[in-house]
């Protein structure tokens, strides 16, 4: 029995360390991505007439199965929201700008082209809806200020 307990302790420690490293990596990447301004977003800036609408940059790639099986159905559930699909391999510079280290990655962009929320990995529809609602609130506050 003691072998089982030791094994649980070792496996648990490995999982815990991996989870901590992943949390640190995503937090660091998110901080860096959110601190950069709207420069270098040509082609992914708000379109005329959509200045007050937040939108989503969706980083994906050929190798991303979760993108097809989970993320795209979640994005489809958002309804009338602009989603800019970006091939993270083909548009490496843009992916680097948002410190994309895993796919899918979704970035909720404010109407001014500033990143407001970055989700590394699968982001479910309710989470994206909440972030979009916050982004709309931010846009309204900015517009009325």
């Amino acid at each position, binding site marked *: *029995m*003691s*072998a*089982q307990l*030791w*094994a*649980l302790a*070792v*496996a648990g420690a*490995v*999982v815990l360390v991996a989870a901590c490293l992943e949390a640190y990596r995503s937090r660091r990447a998110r901080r860096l991505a959110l601190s950069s301004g709207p420069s270098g977003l040509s082609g992914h800036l708000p379109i005329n007439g959509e200045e007050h609408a937040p939108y989503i940059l969706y980083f994906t*790639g*050929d*190798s991303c*199965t*979760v993108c*097809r*099986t*989970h993320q795209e159905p979640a994005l489809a559930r958002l309804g009338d929201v602009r989603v800019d699909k970006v091939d993270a*391999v083909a548009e490496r510079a843009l992916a680097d700008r948002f410190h994309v280290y895993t796919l899918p990655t979704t970035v909720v962009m404010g109407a001014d082209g500033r990143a407001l929320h970055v989700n590394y*990995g*699968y982001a479910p529809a309710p989470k994206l809806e909440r972030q979009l609602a916050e982004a709309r609130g931010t846009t309204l506050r900015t517009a009325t200020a």
Partner: protein
Amino acid sequence: MSTGTQVVDHSALKVNQTGIIATVVVAFIGGAVFRPVLVLIPLLAIVLLLGTFAPQLALFKQLYFKVLKPRGIVKPRPVQDRPEPHNFAQGLGGVFLAVASLLLIPVPFLGLALALIVAVLAFVNLAFGYCLGCQIFFQLERRGLLRA
């Protein structure tokens, strides 16, 4: 980037992952009561390695295709995907379980821990769709160290 996508039935992958988790859990708990049950770990390693190179010998996938799918117990879930990363991940799991099997005699807790980590990764894939073995495959392929 080459795509080479085919249709992969993700239900077969899920059944495979469930089989891996169930076998490791049974070996882990059963081994505490009756030590010979630990033989399930080397057997699982053999099943995964055989299934990697000869899909017709992939026990859990065959269980899905021959029993679960025809009887409607598990519904098929075809997805445009590449089978190679999943096969690679399965093979990697098999290799880790083979190493775990070798460790079971001299340092049993380390062998069990390695088997548990394989089960945890299978669970992460089953529950969240994140396949670490597939990511390793893509990284190796991108660096030209591996060909599909």
